[in-house]
């Protein structure tokens, strides 16, 4: 899929993105665009492109001296790395956004808020005002290889961000997270260049899901491609990603929808987003919800069907983040079919089993009955 629109744009709508925008918008944003193209549901939003990041860096480090200094740090001097990285982060977060970037973000954010206001107004509620729409601000790494994928985990995500000023702050914070101590140390260890560094920042309408989690279009345990493995918890998936809960897990056959594995986890913490409070609210999970499955079998099967569509669209096994909406008024128009309540937050290629491969477990024999002998003829 080729890149659409002008590559030099500083801010672009997610719905306009595709796989070809990986370098300019980052992997997360590009995959969200692809999911939208595939007809799947993605929270509406926009991406602040790598071009915007480049503009900002050019403004605060015009000659690249700062980045040269980092590139020269010895990989094993963690003290020096820590000091230099902190300096860069402070510079990034303190500098105001370049005016052109700020203007485009403000415009895009206004459109997002207007959309939300329309939805709420249509449901007889007062629009909260365009600028007040709550969003998630998420780093979108521009690297392509699998090393970058695990590296992406080091970059920041901010949930429940309300108000334009806060959004602008969080965009800078995401950029600064490229200079986390761990990220810098990682790049130094691998000898990666500092000057080609880039990042997109995704800004999407914040969800308040009933349950959320991750799913793989093959078994992470056995590599079996005939199943979708789902992990889920109540509320936001961030509790699961952060390892605060033992999630519920389901293994669903892609072919029959049969649930071949089902384990109810012990979900002790709950992260939610409340429209009345910024950020994520983390509380102890109400006792009665801890040991209760957060998905019905039907929901697990529907998630698996969605996962299969994602896999088919990308043409390879995927690692997907998802959320299942419950009674979010802003999305109440979507109620009804389970599939319509499933929102996808990210999809990226599964890398572990893809790298391993599998040799055939049997090959054709002269006679079909030879299979019997070759298997039954061996010690058990």
């Amino acid at each position, binding site marked *: 899929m080729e890149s659409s629109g002008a590559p030099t744009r500083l801010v672009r709508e997610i719905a306009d993105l595709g796989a070809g925008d990986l370098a300019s918008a980052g992997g997360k944003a590009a995959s969200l665009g692809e999911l939208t193209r595939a007809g799947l549901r993605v929270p509406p939003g926009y991406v602040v492109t790598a071009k915007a990041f480049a503009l900002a860096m050019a403004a605060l480090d015009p000659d690249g001296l700062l980045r040269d200094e980092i590139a020269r740090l010895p990989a094993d001097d963690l003290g020096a790395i820590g000091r230099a990285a902190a300096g860069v982060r402070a510079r990034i977060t303190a500098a105001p956004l370049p005016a052109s970037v700020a203007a485009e973000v403000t415009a895009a954010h206004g459109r997002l808020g207007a959309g939300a206001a329309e939805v709420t107004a249509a449901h007889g509620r007062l629009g909260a005002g365009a600028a007040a729409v709550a969003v998630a601000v998420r780093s979108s790494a521009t690297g392509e290889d699998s090393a970058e994928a695990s590296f992406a985990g080091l970059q920041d995500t901010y949930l429940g961000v309300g108000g334009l000023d806060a959004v602008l702050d969080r965009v800078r914070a995401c950029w600064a997270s490229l200079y986390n101590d761990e990220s810098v140390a990682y790049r130094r260890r691998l000898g990666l260049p500092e000057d080609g560094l880039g990042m997109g920042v995704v800004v999407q309408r914040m969800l308040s899901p009933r349950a959320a989690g991750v799913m793989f279009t093959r078994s992470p345990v056995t590599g079996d491609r005939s199943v979708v493995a789902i992990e889920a918890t109540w509320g936001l998936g961030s509790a699961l990603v952060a390892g605060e809960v033992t999630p519920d897990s389901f293994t669903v056959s892609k072919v029959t929808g*049969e649930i071949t594995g089902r384990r109810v986890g012990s979900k002790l913490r709950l992260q939610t987003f409340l429209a009345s409070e910024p950020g994520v609210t983390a509380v102890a999970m109400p006792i009665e919800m801890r040991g209760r499955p957060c998905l019905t079998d039907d929901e697990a099967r529907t998630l698996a069907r969605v996962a299969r569509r994602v896999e088919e669209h990308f043409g390879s096994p995927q690692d997907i983040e998802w959320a299942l909406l419950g009674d979010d008024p802003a999305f109440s128009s979507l109620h009804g079919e389970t599939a319509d309540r499933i929102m996808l937050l990210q999809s990226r290629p599964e890398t572990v089993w893809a790298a391993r491969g599998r040799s055939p477990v049997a090959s054709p024999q002269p006679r079909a009955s030879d299979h019997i002998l070759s298997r039954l003829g061996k010690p058990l």
Partner: protein
Amino acid sequence: MDGNESAPRFPLPSEIADAPGAEGWRSMYPYFTRFQPEDDQRFWFYNSMHFPEPMPAFDTVTAEVPYSAIGANTARVFVFPTTLGIEHRIVNGRVYITAIPVTDPEEIGRRAAIFGERAAHYYENWDALYEGWKLRMRALIGEIESITVPELPEFEDLEVVTEARGVAQNHYVRENFHRCIDLFSKMWHHHTEMLMLGYGAYVVFFQFCQQAFPEISDQTAARMVAGIDVIMYRPDDELRKLARIAVQAGVDDLFTEGCSPDEVLAALADRGSAGQTWLAAFEQAREPWFNVSTGDGFYHHHRSWADDLTVPFTALPRYVAQVRDGSLADRPTEALRAERERIATEYRELLVSEEERGAFDQMLGLCRLVFPFVEDHKFYCEHWFTSQFFGKIREFGGLLARFGVLAEAEDVFQLHHTEIDQALSDVMLAWAAGGPPLGAAHWRPIVAERKRMLAALRDWSPPPALGPVPEALNDPAVRMLWGVTQQTIEAWLRPDESAIRGFGASSGIVEGPARVLTDVNQIGEVRDGEILVCPVTAPSWAPVFGKIKAAVSDIGGSMSHAAIVAREYGLPAVVGTGDATKRIRTGQLVRVDGDRGIVRVIG
């Protein structure tokens, strides 16, 4: 594992105490079924699938004869490389079994060479051999049906003299009884003749599926194999047909819930040509399709539809009502076939290479080749032949009762077949000598005591297994036939008292009120949305599958008829629980987990 706690283990056979009130149980069974001291060294498991109840003395013939035939087939005829036969023992009336494996690689190699040639002959000529098999089995059924039980009248017929037969009827008492046992044995040899190879094809395909798709369930692999046109569906199809004819002919008013077969048949005779039309269709359906057992052919009290017409006449009113309101549908065979192909095709596409797909095609093809036999043999063997067999033994019981040796015909099933031999000798001698048989004083107290002991043995809870925990239990035949795996053994070792464990036969989890039926005659009681809990789901139970939410049985395995039907209806099913009908009461809320094979009472 906690070092201070001793590892869980199973009782040793020698540690089993006699069930209270049934201390004399050994007297019911032959010496070769008793546990020996050295049996403590081996792992045994309770064959609850085939023998969920304490064994009446005669019914042990359904263990003795099949194990004699199965072992002969695997160890001696086809020379399976890694397994000899199955040994069985009886303790407190329950049948425990163990397979004797071959583990020496050299010995396996020697056997494999022989097995390859012999097995290939059957697989390569399967369809032709199955046609011949059916003819031989029909002949055996004809033979058992033709056996007569001599009446032993006061004087022999004149023809015995004029035709110079020279042999009096009392001779045929023993000869004909022996023929019953001998034919039963032959039937079981033919039963295993193709069955073990059939299961071999399943085992190999299931193993392949598990390697290629570690998360696949046996149930899903089975769905790729299942044949659509198999005769085990015929009895139920015949009932649907009879319901349609009743409505067409205008005699449907006679088929009401709770109707008595005798009254309906008598009333039909008075309904002119319409009644005759239905009765003619009924006679046609009856032979052979009403020879279907209400059980699975392992106990004498599993009667056939032909023996007890209340079963089909309980189902008929429901089908008649469905014909009237237009809701009676035939099995959607085309949709079932299409779904089976879709599942197989999609799994096939997920394989890693064309090479692997080629192997998959061969193995699946072999399974589908053997499937009709594996499914249909049950109708010929366990249902048709065995119903006739038990009927003949009952007739011999009638003879013994007529001569006063037994109080009633049914008591014959309290005697081992070798004991019946003795009792018949007694009658033969008494008839010849003109005096009374001596058996009344001998056998009647024995029968009464055995009935009392069997009742006491029902209260004994058999441990699921005995002897040392095996390091690895990967026997594919044991897994395929009995659903026993390493996980099963783990679950047995750490029993969860609130869980009723069986074999997950059809996936899904549902909750609903239980309807416990101990007899198929009660199927009229089942209400929509209930969970059927029954001893065994043979084809006789088919009429309720459209009504229920899930099925739970005491007996059955993953390729059992119940499992296949439940998968077709998309109902969760747990089979082979051993005692669900005793642990669940009608009206209790239960949760059926057809994936893991667990049933729980939840309210």
